């Protein structure tokens, strides 16, 4: 993991002192709420429905045991004993008091964490594949790139007041687990077919919200050394040309759409050519220093398959099923990357109690090199687990209600906090997720359905990524009541796609029926081995629309 140097430490501590002073001035009346609001937002403090909310950055979703324990402590001491992991690999506390926030920021600084750039019109927390460094399909670990961008973009004076917020995601694998095509900039590490050099495919202009768009490739193979200069060129074009007169049209996706990707690319290349690359790009020695923090850990030499694991699986079908669903093949023989589901049936997706955080921190320390990852799907990952240790981990997770075997299945629902917490939301999300989870709680049924991603947002801002859900659910207000619009065919992977609306909005209580009918169409129409999304692509929307209309008509 990356560790703070002297500069990082001082920078974060100074920021905490600044905010402590800003809070004091707010309280003594020296500054008004209008003046204070942008300052608190720059430190991750929002005012939500019931209380303040504090958003903490978890760069590229990587946490140490020590950091997770500190989050547990903060949750217990200053919040209500739990936290919420988000689709941007952040953690949000829902009930902090403004008076306590400087103390919380100090506690975060003690473990090299902060809330800087988790809000505001700047380059936000950089996200990455949660299986970085361990996935078998990986070309190169994306975290050194993400860390380099984090350092370059933190308080970057030129890009601190952009037209709107700006999100960057990085993946180093064939299979996109970082939703890069739904980000303002998506970077994919790939090998050049001729030179075999690792370089970047650069996409720009993806994003969800009220105008969902899939990012367009502006460079197929950017040499790694040119990364920061090329990013600077993109940011300059956006900073200069992005609209500032209308916040709904201010994201880079609108600029790319309005002038066309060819023209956008031309302007970026022109700016890139004009830049003094060597003065902008990172010193190779610094890049190497950063990469060193992410080098492969010391793995034990183990057989590819653990006999202990095989024996325990044979003796325990529930454990075997959990292994099948919640682990992925690992680069290192005899190891596994394990996803811990934060989606037990009936709980709020992404929520973890302080006790649960402590347990995961302990397990990571004991079994996974003291490292945890946060996924964009609101789950946690232990990336370096010996296969022979999985049974012990499973037993301890089970005691804490964290052993759900549902990763990638119908109950592994992404959900924003919705109107239960969020001041922007127009409808609730969590109760919809819970109702669907209850409807499909049966493990065998989930297994029979197979991979199916449901994503729910409580408003048009799409924090729940509903546009790229195989089934997306968008909560809106219609004539004074909550109404839910359902989309189908979205995809968050390398085959990124925006889902299409099936029909009129439904009342909350009718959503599980509609989902069930959609799933039943798939089960009756699917070909051998065909997943839900493959089936939707093959047979088209018409059969699903017909089934959906039956629910819509029945309740109209």
């Amino acid at each position, binding site marked *: 993991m990356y560790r703070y140097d002297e500069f990082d430490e001082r920078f974060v501590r100074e920021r905490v002192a600044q905010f402590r002073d800003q809070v004091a001035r*707010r*309280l003594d*009346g020296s500054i*008004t*709420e209008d003046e204070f609001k942008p300052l608190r937002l720059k430190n991750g403090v929002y*005012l*939500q*429905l*019931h*209380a*303040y909310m504090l958003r903490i950055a978890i760069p590229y979703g990587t946490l140490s045991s020590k950091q997770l324990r500190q989050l547990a402590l903060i949750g217990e001491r200053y919040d*209500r004993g739990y936290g919420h992991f988000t689709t941007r690999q952040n953690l949000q506390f829902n*009930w*902090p*008091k*403004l*008076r306590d926030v400087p103390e919380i920021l100090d506690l975060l600084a003690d473990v090299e964490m902060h809330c800087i750039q988790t809000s505001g019109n700047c380059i936000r927390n950089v996200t990455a594949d949660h299986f970085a460094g361990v996935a078998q399909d990986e070309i190169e670990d994306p975290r050194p790139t993400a860390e380099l961008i984090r350092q370059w973009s933190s308080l970057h004076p030129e890009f601190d007041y952009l037209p709107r917020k700006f999100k960057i995601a990085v993946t180093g694998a064939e299979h996109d687990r970082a939703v890069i095509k739904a980000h303002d900039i998506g970077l994919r590490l790939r090998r050049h077919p001729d030179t075999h050099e690792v370089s970047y495919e650069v996409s720009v202009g993806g994003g969800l919200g009220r105008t969902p768009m899939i990012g367009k490739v502006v460079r197929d193979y950017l040499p790694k050394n040119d990364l920061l200069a090329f990013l600077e060129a993109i940011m300059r074009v956006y900073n200069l040309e992005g609209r500032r007169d209308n916040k709904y049209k201010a994201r880079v996706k609108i600029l790319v759409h309005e002038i066309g990707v060819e023209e956008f690319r031309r302007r970026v290349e022109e700016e890139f050519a004009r830049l003094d690359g060597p003065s902008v790009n990172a010193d190779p020695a610094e890049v190497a220093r950063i990469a060193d923090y992410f080098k492969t850990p010391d793995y034990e030499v183990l057989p590819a398959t653990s006999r202990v694991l095989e024996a325990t699986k044979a003796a325990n079908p529930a454990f075997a099923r959990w292994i099948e669903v919640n682990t992925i093949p690992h680069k290192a023989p005899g190891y596994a990357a394990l996803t811990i589901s934060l989606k037990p049936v009936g709980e*709020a997706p992404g929520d973890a109690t302080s006790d649960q955080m402590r347990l995961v921190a302990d397990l990571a320390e004991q079994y996974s090199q003291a490292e945890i990852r946060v996924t964009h799907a609101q789950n946690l990952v232990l990336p370096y687990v010996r296969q022979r240790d999985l049974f012990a981990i499973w037993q301890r997770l089970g005691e804490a209600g964290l052993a759900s075997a549902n990763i990638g299945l119908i109950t592994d629902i992404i959900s924003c906090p919705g*109107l*239960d*917490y969020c001041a922007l939301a*127009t409808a*609730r999300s*969590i*109760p919809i997720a*819970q109702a669907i989870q209850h409807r499909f709680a049966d493990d065998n049924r989930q297994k029979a359905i197979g991979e199916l991603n449901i994503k729910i947002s409580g408003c048009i801002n799409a924090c729940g990524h509903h546009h790229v859900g195989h089934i997306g659910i968008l909560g809106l*207000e219609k004539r*004074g*009541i*909550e109404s839910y619009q359902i989309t189908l065919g979205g995809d968050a992977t390398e085959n990124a796609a925006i889902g299409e609306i099936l029909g009129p909005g439904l009342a909350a209580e009718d959503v599980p029926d509609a989902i069930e009918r959609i799933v039943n169409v798939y089960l009756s129409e699917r070909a051998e081995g065909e997943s839900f999304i493959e089936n939707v692509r093959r047979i088209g929307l018409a059969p699903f629309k017909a089934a959906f209309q039956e629910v819509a008509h029945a309740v109209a």
Partner: protein
Amino acid sequence: MAAAPKRVPLPAILLANDLLDGDVVFAVTDANGQLAWTRDPALALVASDDPAAESLEAFAAAELAGNRVVDAYLVDVAMETGQPVPRHFRERFKTLGPSNRPDLGKQAGDGISAGQRV
């Protein structure tokens, strides 16, 4: 001249978030007959006519300027069993707490039993 913002239908109550805690608070008449804040929605002062609503609006402006609360606004209510209940579902959640966590928020007595008046 900018048009005056349209007032919500009456009857209405005034709610806000406490500046320091973020907790939802409601305007109430205190023992001295002065406007003050309470954390208990059941005690919220109900404005049924324009002069009463104007009084709440003036109180909101003064309290915002005095840095005691943020995000103060009038909410239209219906009277149910003698207590004001917001008509809109958003504000109902705001006066209750998260619907998925009955153990949190006003519905759990949060901030109410600790002291009804600020």
